[in-house]
């Protein structure tokens, strides 16, 4: 199929009001979810997921991508207004955004956050369109040993989402890998930890696990400390960002966008480091260096460009290799699976219309985000005023319906409740849940490709190093492990 045919096939999927409406609704949900501290973009995507099941695959996925992109921008609203990032990615925005809000210029900071976010989002989407296809065509020559090496490398992303302790992240990942072994064995069909219960033979439901792990602990935290969320919202102020300020920050925005694209295309780095790196580079190069951290508008632009530059680029490994780039894309992979789609190189052959449909939808999403974001900045206060002690019971009920709807099975609701307590305990013990989820997704793929490789070679491990592609990924894994070890040692020395 030629590029023109692929584009037309994609356009036929998204060139209708249902697709555009799905995208717009997704962005609205994302902006609102990201703007409410405690909901976060991750939770918003997880909660929206079950509503996409009855939709057309392209519309459902566009809705989730809208939630993702809206959520990343939405996180900057509370970061600027109440010094509480709605998502971890917005942490860097606090540095200059909140001082601006404190002197009554929140509207100016939010306006710049929106302009920078949309610009970076557009750059990131272009990067996805240009690089994903190339990477996918390369990945078509992969066999089980190559995929095993790739997934093993992808597991090093756990270091990027482990937070304060790598060992705790590793423990979380091992728990995820262990829970992924529940069900019938992939090769022999024998029982593993099923206790003879037919509900467990297909393994734990992915949606129940992820909603249990990310949404329910928030409800339990509210039960534990019902008044822990109390905070004050600043006024927007009458001053608005000007085009001259946007032009002055343009270089930082573009630099931040490329930093976001580069880091986002590597699985596991995530938006928060991109935002901080973009911020520090902008500070290093800016003539207003001394003003950074005290309310510099260019600082807001740089951090928002960094985190939004990641949003499209994290889809590069997802679409091209079937490997989630971060937690949110790990959830979005669930939407592909529910609709019978398997992200990866074969999708560029079998479902090229959906791929190009997504590309077109993503390009449109930057414009829709600009409109929705502008409205959200003005309309945020009433949304944020929903009492959290009414919001959380709503979340609980939403979770119950959403998880049940996946398989029409009440057992899944029980799994979600149990995983909620697991997530709460992990939170209390400072064990990050993100490595658990990533390992839970990648675990079966890792084992499956390992055992297929062993079957191919008659049990000889030599096959795992059979060619340049495996050498490349093994090399990357070694480099990543060495970098992680060096980083950990340096952090320990700095803390000592």
């Amino acid at each position, binding site marked *: 199929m030629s590029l023109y045919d692929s584009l037309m096939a994609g356009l036929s999927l998204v060139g209708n009001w249902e697709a555009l409406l799905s995208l717009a609704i997704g962005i609205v949900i994302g902006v609102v979810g990201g703007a409410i501290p405690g909901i976060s973009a991750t939770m918003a995507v997880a909660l929206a997921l079950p509503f996409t099941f*009855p939709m057309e695959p392209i519309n459902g996925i566009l809705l989730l991508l809208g939630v993702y992109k809206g959520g990343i921008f939405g996180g900057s609203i509370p970061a600027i207004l109440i010094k509480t990032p709605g998502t971890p990615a917005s942490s860097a925005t606090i540095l200059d955004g909140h001082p601006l809000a404190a002197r009554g210029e929140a509207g100016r900071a939010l306006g710049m956050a929106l302009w920078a976010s949309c610009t970076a989002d557009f750059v990131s989407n272009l990067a996805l369109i240009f690089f994903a296809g190339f990477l996918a065509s390369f990945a078509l020559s992969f066999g089980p040993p190559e995929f095993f090496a790739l997934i093993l490398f992808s597991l090093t992303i756990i270091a990027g989402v482990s937070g304060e302790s790598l*060992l705790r992240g*590793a423990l979380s990942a*091992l728990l995820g890998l262990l829970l992924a072994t529940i069900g019938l064995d992939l090769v022999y069909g*024998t029982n593993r930890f099923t206790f003879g219960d037919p509900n467990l033979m297909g393994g734990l439901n992915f949606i129940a696990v992820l909603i249990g792990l990310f949404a329910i602990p928030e409800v339990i935290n*509210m039960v534990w400390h019902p008044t822990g969320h109390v905070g004050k919202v600043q006024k927007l102020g009458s001053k608005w960002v000007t085009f001259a300020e946007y032009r002055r920050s343009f270089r930082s925005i573009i630099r931040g966008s490329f930093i976001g694209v580069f880091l986002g295309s590597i699985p596991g780095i995530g938006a928060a480091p991109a935002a901080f790196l973009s911020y520090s580079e902008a500070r290093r190069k800016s003539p207003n260096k001394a003003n950074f951290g005290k309310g510099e508008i260019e600082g807001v632009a740089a951090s928002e460009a960094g985190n939004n530059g990641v949003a499209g680029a994290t889809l590069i490994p997802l679409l091209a290799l079937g490997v989630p780039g971060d937690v949110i894309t790990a959830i979005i992979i669930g939407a592909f699976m529910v609709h019978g789609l398997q992200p990866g190189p074969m999708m560029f052959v079998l479902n090229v219309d959906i791929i190009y449909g997504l590309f077109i939808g993503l390009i449109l999403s930057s414009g829709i985000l600009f409109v929705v974001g502008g409205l959200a900045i003005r309309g945020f206060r009433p949304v944020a005023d929903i009492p959290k002690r009414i919001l959380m*019971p709503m979340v609980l009920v939403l979770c119950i319906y959403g998880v049940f709807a996946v398989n*029409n099975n009440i057992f899944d609701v029980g799994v979600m409740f149990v995983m909620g307590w697991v997530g709460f305990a992990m939170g209390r013990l400072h064990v990050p849940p993100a490595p658990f989820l990533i390992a839970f997704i990648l675990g079966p793929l890792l084992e499956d490709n*390992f055992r297929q490789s062993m079957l191919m070679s008659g049990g000889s491990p030599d096959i795992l190093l059979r060619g340049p592609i495996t050498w490349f990924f093994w090399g990357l894994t070694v480099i990543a492990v060495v970098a992680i070890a060096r980083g950990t040692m340096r952090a320990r020395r700095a803390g000592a």
Partner: protein
Amino acid sequence: MQLRLGLGAILAAVFLVTYAIPNWVSSPSNVRNIVLSPLFWPYILGGLTGVVGLGLAFAGWREAGGEAVNEAIPDPQAGAVRLVAFAVLMALTFWVMPVLGMVWTSMLAFVALAFLVKTRHPAAAVICAVVVPLILYAFFAHVASVAIPQGDLVRLP
């Protein structure tokens, strides 16, 4: 906390390797190669859990006192009682759902949770408790064609 977490992981690994995997993972007797056995992967993971547990215990022992602590709450005892009550609420929701139906159970769970966290807007909570499950029912049952459990008592259209 890290030391206890490490010791917990070691105990879990010992339990996995000595009891859980031999008893709860079955493998055909004619497997030619150990790496192809259904037992291989769980044993590897069990072993790695022990290694990570050792690492955590060692790190906790070396860095005693320098760990992150959880945010203190005004009345931890009342917090613990609320947690137990919420666990009971979850268990009741799970067991009662097939009998009462998802809509009625969700309404009761909503109200119970709102009052458990001492909402300052009881009237709004009750209204939302009725409206939200009904809207979700309408969406899932009539738009998404999901067979929402109706229960044995009152059935919705």
